Each structure stands twice: as structure tokens, then as C-alpha cells.
């Protein structure tokens, strides 16, 4: 195993996590319906087509954020129960690779979830968008997914193995990903063109998303080894 | 004095909280301190 580079470890870990997910189908059968229900609940609570169209961007990202907690929780459930993570470390596996692999798996799941949520949002809330708007939305989704994935896996690893994981993770992660929520919402709003915003207004926010992802990706790479250490 | 309610509330809550945490610190400190032998306390 040690002959694998960081990239090799990352690939194997990501495939392992995705295979576990594919067999259990928790994200598809539980997280995705939950997120869609949240979108429906927003529609009930706000009860106005005009308000929904104006807030559609933010609602999609709120639902995404709630789902991130569930996905990260799920990603660590199998690793923690039998101490697999610490065994990997004890076996001398490259922990940066594990971090990247777990992040990649979470990101793939998150991205697919977002695709569905965006479609649900556009159908339910009746939003129109130009072609360049779709382009910006796609870039926004990639940037936000990177940031959410890195932060989720990093903080999930920090409290993996401790009690109260389910309640503690949102408390820790929510303040950290606030810039992602803010930036992704503004970028999506300018992609849609809400309240006179144009596509050009969105690019600084997209920039923040990628800077954020870069900083926490780097932070995770540097610290994940100590994070997991017992 | 104008707005006396808001100002009084600020002072009462601030100093009330401070007195509470100081009292708790003193009580917990003396309770624990009796259980721990002095040679384990690096500050003495």
C-alpha cells in the first residue's frame, strides 16, 4: 500500500467511500428526499411566488448546506465505528491522500445532490435563466462544492470518534461555511439576474468560493494527519 | 437621565455576569484545591 502515492491513496479511498454509499444508497434514498422536502417546506413557509423567485438562490444553498452535514456524518460513520481511520494512519497510509479521497467522495455526492436541488428549485420556484447564467451557476456549484467538501471532511475528522457528532458538526461547520453560503447565494442571484444584478456582479463571489476552497483544502492537507492522530 | 432602563440593564447584566463567574471560579477553585495535594500545584 505504501507504494501508492498521495493520488493513489486518494483514488482508492474515494472509490471505497463511493462504493459504500452506492451499496447503502443513504444519500439517494434519504438525504436527497430530505433536501427536496426542505425546498418544498420553504415554498410553504414563504408562500409567495415573487418572494420565492427572489430567494431561490439562497434556498438552494441552504438546503445544500443542511445536506452537507448529513453527507459528512455518513462519510465518517463507517470509518469511526471500527476505528478504520486510525488503523489507516497506524498502517502508514498517506493521510493527505485519505483527506483528498474522502473530500472527493463527499464532493461527488454533494455535486449530484446540487444538480437535483437546482432542478427542483427551478421547477418549484419558476425561475428563468440565460445561457451564460447557467454557465456561472455551474462554476459556482463547482466552487461551493470544493469548499463545503474540504471543510466538512476536515471538521468531521476532527470530531470523528467523539460523542455528540450529529449535533456538534453543524455547530462547528456552519460558522465556517458562512462565506460559502453568502458567496454562492450572491453568485446564483446574479446568474439568475435577481433585483437588477448582472452576471458581472457574480464573479467576485465566485472568486471568494475558490479562494475559500483553496485555503481550507490547503489547511486540511497540512493538518489532517494531526487531526486523525489519537 | 434619559434611556435609564437600557443603561441600567447593561450595567446590571454585565456586572451580574462578572460577579457570577468570579463566584463560581472561587467556589470551584477552593473545592478542587482541598482535594489536590499542594505539591501537585505548580503555582504554589
Amino acid at each position, binding site marked *: 500500500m505504501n507504494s501508492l502515492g498521495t493520488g493513489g491513496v486518494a483514488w482508492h479511498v474515494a472509490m471505497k467511500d463511493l462504493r459504500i454509499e452506492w451499496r447503502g444508497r443513504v444519500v439517494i434514498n434519504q438525504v436527497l428526499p430530505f433536501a427536496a422536502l426542505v425546498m418544498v417546506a420553504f415554498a410553504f413557509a414563504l408562500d409567495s411566488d415573487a418572494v420565492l423567485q427572489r430567494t431561490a438562490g439562497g434556498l438552494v444553498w441552504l438546503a445544500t448546506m443542511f445536506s452537507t452535514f448529513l453527507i459528512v456524518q455518513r462519510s465518517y460513520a463507517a470509518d469511526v465505528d471500527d476505528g478504520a481511520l486510525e488503523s489507516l494512519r497506524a498502517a502508514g497510509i498517506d493521510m493527505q491522500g485519505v483527506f483528498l479521497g474522502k473530500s472527493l467522495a463527499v464532493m461527488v455526492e454533494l455535486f449530484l445532490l446540487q444538480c437535483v436541488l437546482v432542478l427542483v428549485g427551478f421547477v418549484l420556484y419558476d425561475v428563468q435563466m440565460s445561457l451564460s447564467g447557467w454557465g456561472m451557476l455551474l462554476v459556482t456549484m463547482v466552487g461551493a462544492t470544493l469548499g463545503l467538501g474540504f471543510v466538512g471532511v476536515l471538521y468531521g475528522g*476532527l470530531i470523528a470518534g*467523539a460523542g455528540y457528532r450529529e449535533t456538534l458538526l453543524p455547530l462547528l461547520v456552519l460558522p*465556517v461555511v458562512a462565506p460559502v453560503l453568502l458567496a454562492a447565494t450572491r453568485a446564483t442571484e446574479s446568474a439568475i439576474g435577481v433585483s437588477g444584478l448582472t452576471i458581472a456582479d457574480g464573479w467576485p463571489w465566485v472568486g471568494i468560493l475558490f479562494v475559500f476552497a483553496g485555503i481550507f483544502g490547503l489547511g486540511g492537507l497540512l493538518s489532517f494527519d494531526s487531526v486523525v492522530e489519537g | 437621565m434619559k434611556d435609564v432602563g437600557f*443603561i441600567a440593564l*447593561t450595567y446590571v*447584566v*454585565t456586572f451580574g*455576569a462578572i460577579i457570577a463567574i468570579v463566584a463560581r471560579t472561587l467556589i*470551584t477553585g*477552593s473545592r478542587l484545591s482541598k482535594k489536590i495535594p499542594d505539591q501537585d500545584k505548580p503555582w504554589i
Partner: protein
Amino acid sequence: MNSTPRTEPARVGTPATRVFGLLAVLFLGWVVVGGLFITPADAIQGDSVRIMYVHVPTAWVAYLAFIVTAIASAGYLFGKRHSLGFDRVAGASAEVGVLFMALTLMSGSLWGRLTWGTFWQWDPRLTTTAFLFVTYLGYLAVRGLGGTPERRAKRSAILALLAVLEIPLVHFSVLLWRSLHQEASVLSSDGDVKLDDLMLFTLLVGVLGFTALYGWLVSHRQRILTMRDIEEAKGIDLAISERIAEGSVR
């Protein structure tokens, strides 16, 4: 001072902390008396300026506390000996910081209601402060997760350093967010006041007094954390020796 170790009850305080405590009582006594009754009302803000004598010092102490937590966490992680002393200072400082941050937000929103007409503004400084508060609530929750003191120290030190990454990002994104909206003009009076000498003196005494209080609280609470670790280790040792004793009887 340690000539009569057995006659007086065991204490947490030392001469240094007594100096801090005495200064805090004296200075904060002046803040209450001077701030509420002796200083004049401000020309623009009126009496609501009196809130500033506790608001500004508590805000200063809250930020100081979190800086100390970050530095002590770095000291634990990067220090050669991984001294638990750093970890306990970080923890004690965060405890005090969370309390003072809560007080700052409370007094700030009351002041804002009087001056701006609203309890809350989505101003970058306020928003960042609120996020700092929530972040350190999470930090304290993680400290309480249990495990060995070393595990706790490492976990919370990493968390404190991640907060150092997080807070500027939050601040910058809120800054950009607010600059895109044009409603910042509500802050026409943003708290700039002309302070006369007595007012400035009271503010300064407040800062010194609250800082002395911070020093007293952190040294005491840091010692309490030390004793708690010792007590817990003792409890574990006791449990182990009891089990061994049980085993040898059978």
C-alpha cells in the same frame, strides 16, 4: 509566602492574582460610579454613551481572549514539549472570551437600539463578532468532548488555529456583501463621539479594569483546569487499582 503551607486552607490564588483582583475591583468600581453618575452625558449620544464604558472594554477583552487562545494553541501545537499548560491557558482564555463576547453583543445591541434605532445591523464588524462568538462556543463544546488531556489539547488547538483562517474569510465576505448594498447610511452616527477628559479617563480605567479582571479569571480558571485534569487522572488510577484489587481477591 509558602512558609506556612499547612495552617491556612489550600488556595488557588497567588500574590500576582491578588494584585490583578484588587486592581479589577478598584478600577471597575470607578467605572460603575464614574460611568453612571459622575461623567457628563454626551452632546450627540446623550446618556447612552454610558453604555460605552462597559461595552468597549468588554469587546477589547473578548478579542484579547481569542488572540491569547490562538497564540496559546499555536504554542501547544508547535512547541517542542507540547506543554498542557498552553492548552489550559487557551481553554481558560476561551471560556472568559465567550462570556465577554456575549456581554459585548448584549451591551452593543442595547446601545444600537438607542443610537441607531435598531438592535442589530448587518455591519461587517458586528457580523464577524457574532461569528467569532459562535465559533468559540463550538470550540468550548469540542473541549468538553472528553478523551485524554493530550487528545483534547490537540483537537482544540487545531480548531483554534482553523478559526484564525475562518474569521478573516467571514469578515471579508461580509464586507463585500455589505458594500454591494447601499443601505449603510443608517449608520450616519457610527459611534464617533468627542470625549472630554473625564469620559476618556473612565473609558481607559474601564479597559485597564476589565483587562485586570481577565488576568485574574484566566489564571484562576487555568489552575482549575489543571486541578480537574489531576483529579480525573486520579479517578482513573483509583478505578484501575480497585479493579486490580478485586481481581486479586478472587
